[in-house]
């Protein structure tokens, strides 16, 4: 599903963010990518979304070499990846329903489909009664649920989450993780970039550790390395 083949990324400033990364994430997996600040996690996240181009190496998503993708094909590629951010990135002037519907409007879904799907997503993330609320009226955990619903509303096969629990208290963080686990059980491949050690240890999933742009460990069942 996701393959990185000897990927290097050096910024124009000369900073080397990734140095020969090889990864293979299969369909339906739940993977944590961990590492300290500046380890290259965020660069990897941006490469997967084709927000950045690798300096060398190849990246395949669903068997497609995204390095060869034409610019006008990028939106279609991104529609296959749901994205969740640490700071939620919700539209503050639109209510919960509109925030989720927005993702469907962007990809041109008909109004009828939107009316059916959005309530289903709200129910999935446990916010059926908050459809009319504005993001500012919700707690951090609730906002992250809305963000999750928005990421999943177009039914992408892959979900990328960048520090999804970074702004949450431990209880809310755990709830979000359990929600991600549920989503993964429904068949979505989930990749979570984080440095929340507690969560990673409790989840007991595959953990890829990056340090100074190099994969230093790739283990199943939690953390075995320090970072």
């Amino acid at each position: 599903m996701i393959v990185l083949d000897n990927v290097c990324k050096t910024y124009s400033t000369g900073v080397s963010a990734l140095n020969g990364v090889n990864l293979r994430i299969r369909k339906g997996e739940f993977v944590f990518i961990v590492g300290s600040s500046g380890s290259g996690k965020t660069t990897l996240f941006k490469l997967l979304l084709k927000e950045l181009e690798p300096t060398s190496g190849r990246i395949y998503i669903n068997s497609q070499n995204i390095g060869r993708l034409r610019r006008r094909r990028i939106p279609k590629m991104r529609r296959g990846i749901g994205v969740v951010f640490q700071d939620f990135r919700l539209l503050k002037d639109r209510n919960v329903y509109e925030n989720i519907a927005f993702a469907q409007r962007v990809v041109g879904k008909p109004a009828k489909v939107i009316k059916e799907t959005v309530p289903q997503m709200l129910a999935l993330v446990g916010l059926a009664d908050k459809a009319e609320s504005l993001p500012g009226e919700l707690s951090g955990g609730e906002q992250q649920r809305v963000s999750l619903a928005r990421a999943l509303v177009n039914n992408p096969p892959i979900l990328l989450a960048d520090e999804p629990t970074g702004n949450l208290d431990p209880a809310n963080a755990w709830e979000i993780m359990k929600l991600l686990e549920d989503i993964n059980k429904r068949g979505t491949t989930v990749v979570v970039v984080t440095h929340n050690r507690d969560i990673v240890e409790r989840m007991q999933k595959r953990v890829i550790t990056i340090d100074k742009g190099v994969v230093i460990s790739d283990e199943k069942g939690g953390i075995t390395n320090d970072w």
Partner: protein
Amino acid sequence: MIGRMFYAIRQGFKNIGRNRLFSLASVGTITACLFMFGIFYCIVANFQYMVHAAESNVGVTVFFDETVTEDKMLEIQRLIDAREEVSSTNYISADDAWENFKQDYFADGDEGILAGLDQDNPLVDCASVQVYLADTSRQAELISYIESLEGVSEVNASDIIAESFTNFSRLIGYVSLGIILILVFVAIFLISNTVMIGIAVRKEEIAIMKYIGATDLFVRGPFIVEGMTIGLIGSVIPVAILRALYPMVVDFVLEHFSILNRILTFMNVNDVFNILIPISLAIGLGIGFIGSYMTLRKHVRV
């Protein structure tokens, strides 16, 4: 597709609403620019109209050799008339010339002096063809053509008048083009700034759209609508004002400067605005499109 188009239009109008002050400033500037353009156009169009009217009075007179028959003269007239740069020709026979002369110089009743001359026209060899030009810039070319015709003895023309008219028209054309270009650049710059502010305000939304998989067109659509709407409003206002003012100004000038009535022949209001309205709207929409598109190309890429 239609849904996305409506989305772009709706969001475009929302952008204008959110960005009210800057939108208003842009509309105001485009209005001012196109108002000046409109005034300039009215002046230039009317001036050219007057010049054209004056040009049609600038003629070339062709005289013939003594041996040339009237039939040959009329044939020469036909040849000249067929030329592209010629607007009209007028054959003046020797008898017509004598009649004109009498009217011009002896109109007061001294006809007795001339009575004996009617039988023996003193201007017997003075038949001519009066040629009026459609394009005075080609007068020299026409003269050399006429001179090359067999039977033509002399061609009289006023080179200075023709050349002055041509040069003045050209100067006006260049000056107006220069001013219009400057105004268009100013307006594009302003639209671009307004759209840039809109982009800055909606930076987060644009970033989210990109991550969700929005196409360039989807992201840019509302801004293009915003720019073109501002351009359209900015062009409708000055055209409407000018349309209302034009007849009043013409009436005022004709009333208060009646001494110039013989020189000043103004264009009909419909003739001016049948051209000015589409040009202004096209410029407004064009400025809006170019201003927003340039900014989006630079700042909004998927």
